[in-house]
């Protein structure tokens, strides 16, 4: 394996060895070799020709499908800002639920999340740009992560709802006690227990919004 082959292998090492990626990698290798030969024919040294060819290749990630280059700080700022917004809304929604114990827990959790998101946002907001100014985002991978989060969220909501309904009503099966919701407070307490897990929908929605953010920033680099 010569220097060029080694360089190309390193650049493609993070990608899976799929047939189309291997073909693409070989195509890049052939093109670069041709470029080196061409530069050397024009009198460049081997190292000089290699450097020119590698420079002309640019960022390999951007050549792959489903990748997008963004301004690093701007993207991070935007993502952190969205995190603040998407923690702020459920935080406000859960404030009236603080009359109930699960509501206090949920609201405290969102408060914590909001605080962390706020600190991160302020950090990025006042961070002065240094080093690498762009970043390549694997959009396809982000889409997959979002799908996984939606699946996990659906499972969580399903299990929570089953658990809540079970604890409220299924004891009737074992203990032969009739189902009783006495008074509006008890009814509200039941409704809060059922509704609370659904408020976490803002977590998968955040990841969807991040994809929109990428669309917004597309072509800005």
């Amino acid at each position: 394996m010569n220097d060029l082959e080694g360089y190309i292998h390193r650049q493609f090492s993070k990608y899976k060895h799929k047939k189309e990626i291997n073909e693409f990698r070989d195509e890049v290798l052939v093109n670069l070799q041709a470029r080196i030969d061409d530069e050397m024919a024009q009198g460049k040294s081997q190292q000089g020709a290699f450097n020119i060819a590698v420079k002309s290749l640019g960022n390999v990630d951007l050549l792959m499908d489903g990748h997008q280059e963004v301004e690093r700080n701007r993207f991070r700022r935007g993502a952190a800002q969205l995190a603040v917004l998407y923690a702020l809304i459920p935080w406000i929604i859960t404030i009236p639920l603080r009359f109930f114990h699960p509501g206090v827990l949920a609201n405290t959790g969102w408060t914590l999340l909001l605080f962390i998101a706020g600190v991160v946002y302020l950090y990025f907001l006042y961070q002065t740009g240094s080093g690498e100014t762009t970043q390549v985002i694997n959009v396809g991978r982000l889409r997959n992560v979002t799908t996984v989060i939606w699946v996990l969220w659906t499972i969580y909501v399903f299990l929570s709802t089953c658990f809540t309904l079970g604890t409220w009503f299924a004891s009737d099966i074992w203990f032969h006690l009739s189902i009783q919701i006495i008074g509006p407070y008890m009814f509200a307490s039941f409704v809060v227990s059922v509704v609370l897990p659904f408020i976490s929908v803002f977590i998968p929605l955040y990841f969807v919004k991040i994809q929109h953010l990428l669309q917004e920033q597309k072509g800005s680099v």
Partner: protein
Amino acid sequence: MTKERNLVIIVLLIIGVAALCVVEFGFKANIRHQEQQYALAQLNPQTNDFSNIVKFKNPYVGDNGNDVNLNANLPFANVPHTFSIDDTTRELDVLYTKSEQDLGMATSQFQASLVYNATANFAMIDNLNEITLKFPGASYHVTRAQVLSWYGVAPTQLTNKSSWKRDVQSKLSNLKYVSDAFRAFFGRF
């Protein structure tokens, strides 16, 4: 877009903080205050909530958990106490750890509380024969027969809201009634 979102964040943050203050320092503070008032009212025989004690109506004095819960909702509930049950005589002793002087209550209020607690225990525990309310330096003993004799009906017949209010609670505002009932119950002046 960033500036608009920042504006939205600031507005939402203000709304959230205001809502949190209203909930925590307005509504919930008010609820806490009402709960404290309610808890205090339970220590007064005239304002003790009948619906809160009738939940502990039970046929047996041997149900220790029920005895504990019943007395935890009666006057003197705030005074640390333990129980002693004699199954053969079906007698319940409630042993309080503070004396009448330590409690700092007016004598009439103390006597009314004793009368009320004894009545409540006989009314709610069907097979209770005798009860002794013991304080350091003094103990107050009364039997079911004495209570029946005072009210003219079996104590268990007092366990509906209107009878309880009419025949037990409302009369305890009369100092002479309290004094007479105390004497009839515990044989003291």
